[in-house]
């Protein structure tokens, strides 16, 4: 039987072999650590330390501001040297707390720790917020908000997004192979909040070792299932994933909960496990440091706040001249013009490319081949939308469902005329969103 999936999508070169078989290594930062107060969607955290303070690993250095917000914790022990705006991955200056590492890694003691099973559901969710956990797949939406649905009985499916469909990335894959029991425990904790839900580990059929590992680890759990999906990009997009797992379709103005689903990233589930089982806040994450330009691509467990520039050295430096740096995967990642930006909670990878396709090819006239229509997972007409965007036809753009675009990049990838379709559509979407027109 063919594995479930969605309609459309593409099959880019996977290029995962660089780091597929490289176990996760601990990385100990050498330089200063930079903690932007806004690493999530919602209100930026408010600093609670000042320059000169000594902080411990796991100590809150910025507290949550309101409900849709999370605190930020120090990932090393050391001294706060400054609180000042610093450059982040997106190129913006964001208020950041700078900590000088004392290399002691002295942990903040955990006060009056209660086993998670004894906590009320509300207290479990509160502990997740206190641990500073956000969606680590890229969006950075606070996890406790996702979990605190109005009617938990309506949630029928909890999906862990194990598909990792972006080329090059293997951080989730390594987690699944190395620590499948963390995922199973994390799932158990999430399922404890939703008594009527079944747990699904949704994974692409190409990740055989991870499928085996998860099946072994989840074997005795009656409420969990490993669901094997077709290997295709963007299988890991939330809407596509929900469709492949449940057959339900949601659009841009709906939440997964509207389809009775909750979707979490692999690293997020591991963080939930660490928080509920041991009271550990989110202070580190797995980062795939990869690309043809690197001598020794690897997966590292990196303290949040570490500079990307340090990771280059940790991966053996450059073997050939790099052309482009990307934070995240090549399909949706952000290209960097400066490597001196910190790893944040949503940084999944640093990709060092030795050639840049986006610059190598010149766009030419659309030949109306329809490849973009076939590739679009949202069933849109990207060539038309890009035309409308380039001519600022806002009404028409919205009527043709332009706001439904995921910005997954599939249309640009397949376009034989090398048009910058995703870029044009994205620009229009951002402009409309900024005007408050959905």
């Amino acid at each position, binding site marked *: 039987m063919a594995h479930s999936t969605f309609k459309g999508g593409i099959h*880019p070169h996977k290029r995962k072999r660089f780091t597929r078989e490289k176990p996760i290594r601990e990385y100990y930062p050498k330089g200063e650590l930079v903690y932007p107060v806004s690493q999530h969607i919602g209100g930026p955290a408010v600093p609670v330390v000042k320059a000169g303070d000594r902080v411990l690993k796991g100590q809150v250095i910025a507290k949550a501001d309101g409900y849709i917000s999370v605190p930020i914790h120090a990932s090393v022990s050391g001294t706060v040297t400054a609180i000042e705006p610093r450059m982040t991955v997106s190129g913006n200056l964001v208020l950041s707390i700078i900590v000088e590492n004392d290399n002691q890694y002295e942990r903040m003691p955990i006060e009056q720790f209660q086993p998670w099973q004894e906590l009320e559901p509300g207290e479990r969710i509160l502990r997740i917020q206190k641990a500073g956990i956000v969606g680590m797949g890229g969006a950075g939406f606070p996890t406790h908000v996702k979990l605190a649905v109005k009617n938990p009985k309506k949630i029928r499916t909890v999906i862990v997004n194990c598909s990792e469909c972006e080329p090059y990335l293997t951080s989730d894959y390594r987690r699944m192979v190395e620590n499948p029991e963390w995922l199973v425990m994390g799932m158990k904790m999430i399922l404890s909040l939703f008594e009527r839900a079944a747990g699904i580990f949704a994974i692409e059929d190409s990740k055989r070792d991870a499928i085996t590992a998860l099946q072994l680890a989840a074997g005795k759990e009656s409420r969990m299932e490993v669901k094997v999906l077709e290997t295709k990009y963007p299988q890991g997009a939330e809407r596509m994933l929900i469709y492949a797992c449940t057959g339900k379709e949601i659009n841009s103005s709906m939440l997964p909960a509207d389809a009775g689903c909750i979707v979490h990233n692999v690293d997020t589930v591991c963080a939930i496990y660490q928080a509920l089982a041991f009271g550990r806040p989110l202070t580190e994450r797995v980062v795939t440091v990869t690309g043809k330009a690197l001598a020794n691509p690897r997966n590292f467990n990196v303290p949040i706040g570490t500079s990307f520039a340090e990771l280059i050295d940790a991966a053996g430096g450059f073997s050939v001249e790099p052309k*482009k740096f990307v934070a995240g995967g090549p399909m949706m990642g952000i290209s960097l013009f400066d490597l001196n930006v910190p790893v944040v909670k949503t940084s999944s990878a640093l990709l060092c490319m030795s050639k*840049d396709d986006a610059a190598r*090819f010149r766009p030419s006239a659309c030949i109306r081949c329809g*490849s973009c229509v076939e590739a679009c997972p949202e069933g849109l007409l990207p*060539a038309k939308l890009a035309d409308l965007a380039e001519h600022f036809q806002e009404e028409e753009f919205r009527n043709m*469902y332009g706001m439904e675009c995921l910005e997954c990049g599939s249309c640009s990838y*397949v376009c*034989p*005329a090398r048009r910058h379709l995703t870029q044009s559509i994205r620009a229009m979407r951002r402009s409309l969103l900024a005007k408050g027109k959905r």
Partner: protein
Amino acid sequence: MENKMNVSASPHIRGNMSTSKIMRLVILALLPAAGFGIYNFGIRALYHMIVCIVTCVLTEFTYEAFADRPVAAGDFSSVVTGLLLALSLPVNAPLWIGFAGGVFAVLVVKMLFGGIGQNIVNPALAGRCFLLISFAKHMTDFACDAYTGPTPLEALKQGEAVDPLYLILGNTGGCIGETSALAILLGALLLLGFGIINLRIPASCFAVFTGMLILFSGKGFDEIYLVQELSSGGLMLAFWFMATDYTTSPITKKGQILYGILIGALTAVFRLYGTASEGVSYAILLANLLTPVIEKVTVPRAFGRRH
């Protein structure tokens, strides 16, 4: 190193299809039909191809150079136009006819409308129809050294019997590249295999055309007659290679099916009730004109907005 990094919007990788690669694959898919044309009609068929292709490419290049536009003549699209035009000429036609058709196809139909991707009707087909109207005598002179007498399609129209085996193999009179259904089907398989076309347009063309013949020809379900109709004239070449032309067919999935239905129906009407023996060229040209409307009414609903 930091000072010279590339920065751009995602995605940062691209697939390996390009316009020129698509065109080269289409040319490859046309080679069986072209090769059989040369085998069937002799070396003169090759001369026609050379004249048409050179004319088309030079016309595009000259226009772009004089109009001060970026030169895209190297993308092989005019080679495809030229080859398709040559394949729909009778071998006996004078060689200048390919030149006239090529200039009309590329200059008037393609470049004056804005070049690749902008033309409203298929250049090769429009070129052929232009020649058919202007130089009817040359364009319908199918007698040559190899074959004399009417083409199979003309014979069919007059109610004569034609051996379907010859039609499928292609050892008959007709235009250079349209006689062998087998060679064209081989090319069609290549197009499908390379992922250049999908079945929506050709399948709906064939289904509707065949269905209408069964219903309205008065012959009912007569396999021999159907095979004769399907494999005679320019139908195979037109349904597989011209109806599927990217620029002039809809990009919406539903629109492609609608467009195929339209072509199939019009072709059947022209063949059954028209005075000329061939009607597929005009059917496609008419459908080309309706493509913008078809696209407008078949905008798909987005994922999650279907209910």
